[in-house]
């Protein structure tokens, strides 16, 4: 009986190690950067569904929301939550608009450092400029299908908000598959993108912040 348990334990440990070790250090950073930048230059737009799971570790609670994501070249992002609540966030260069069930609010992200940083992370991930973001140091790992970019905050403001941000990229088209924002207290928000349509014409009206 003991030997069976030991074998099962060894199998479990082996599987766990295999999963943890599925991402390994990148072999050639220069080639990755080159390909990521080239793919980003080709990328005109992204339209996709997303599921966001906010995990509150201490409360042992998970909040799951669903929505639509749009990106268009020229620093334009629209994140539209549709379930279980309605909430819209549009970033268009320095302008930002948020709308909940009660009110629409507009901001200039330049007047708010936190908003500016979030705007910058979103746009940098899409535009292939993530290495130049001075608020983070970036490390890249890979497995057979994905790259994992680990962004570690380097400024005090970002350190207060995040312990780390993980960006998972597809190896085929270099677009974002998942975004995991890990907060200082251990909570995290994981956004998983699906049904991605690349380079489809997207109506400019969707990015209106007025």
């Amino acid at each position, binding site marked *: 009986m003991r030997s069976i348990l030991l074998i099962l334990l060894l199998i479990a440990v082996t599987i766990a190690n295999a999963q943890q070790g599925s991402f390994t250090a990148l072999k050639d950073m220069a080639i990755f950067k080159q390909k990521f930048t080239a793919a980003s230059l080709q990328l005109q737009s992204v339209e996709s569904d997303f599921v966001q799971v906010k995990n509150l570790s*201490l*409360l042992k609670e998970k*909040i*799951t929301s669903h929505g639509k994501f749009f990106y268009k070249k020229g620093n334009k992002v629209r994140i539209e939550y549709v379930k279980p*609540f309605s909430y819209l*966030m549009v970033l268009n260069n320095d302008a930002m608009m948020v709308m909940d069930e*009660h009110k629409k609010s507009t901001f200039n992200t330049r007047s708010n450092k*936190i908003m500016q940083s979030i705007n910058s992370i979103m746009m940098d991930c899409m535009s292939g400029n993530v290495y130049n973001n001075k608020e983070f140091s970036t490390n890249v790992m890979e497995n057979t299908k994905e790259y994992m970019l680990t962004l570690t905050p380097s400024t005090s403001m970002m350190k207060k908000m995040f312990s780390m941000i993980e960006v998972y990229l597809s190896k085929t088209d270099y677009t974002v598959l998942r975004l995991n924002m890990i907060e200082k207290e251990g909570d995290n928000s994981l956004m998983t993108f699906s049904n991605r349509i690349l380079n489809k014409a997207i109506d400019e009206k969707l990015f209106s912040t007025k």
Partner: protein
Amino acid sequence: MKNFSVRSSLLLIVLFSQPIFAKTLEPDECLKNLRSGIESIKYRTSIDVLQKHLSGLLIFKRMDDSSIRAVFMNEVGATFFDITFYNDSYHYNYVMKSLDKKSVKKTVAKDLGMILMRGIYKGRPSCITSLEHSYITLRLQSKGTVRYTTTPDCAPVELIENMGRKKAVISVRQFYTAKVSMPDSIFVQHHTVHFTISLKQFNAEE
């Protein structure tokens, strides 16, 4: 005999038509019952303060040590604040930098403390009752009192008021869809400044 009947009738009319003040309930027990009804729950929330509007989810969670944790986060997942309410005190575990001001923190904690009936009070409650209502009054650790309007049999609270010298400076109205322990919706109205909080019970499966 006729006089006696008239007097008796009058006495009965007076007794049943006027609130009987000064009849003391068991306020400690009622408060304990009301507090124990506060369970883990999520509310869709919007806060309007001066020119600012915040929206998101407010989670109340009863912890193993009986404290209540209140976490308010926006729809995107960023946490605005995280407070633990104990019976006689509260503690901010986290507050977003833009809200990290003494007056804001104190006001938010007071409003939520009024709803959760803990963390902001000192001393024992007092109570007066009429035929229809019971008014349980608690003294704030800062200044002033808070009055909970319930019934003599200690039904869930529909009105909470932070009393000023002459009238309420904050009113909290709670609405119930059924006889459940937590309200379906809650409206907090400050009468001296433009500050309102609206909570609507939120079901993640909706």
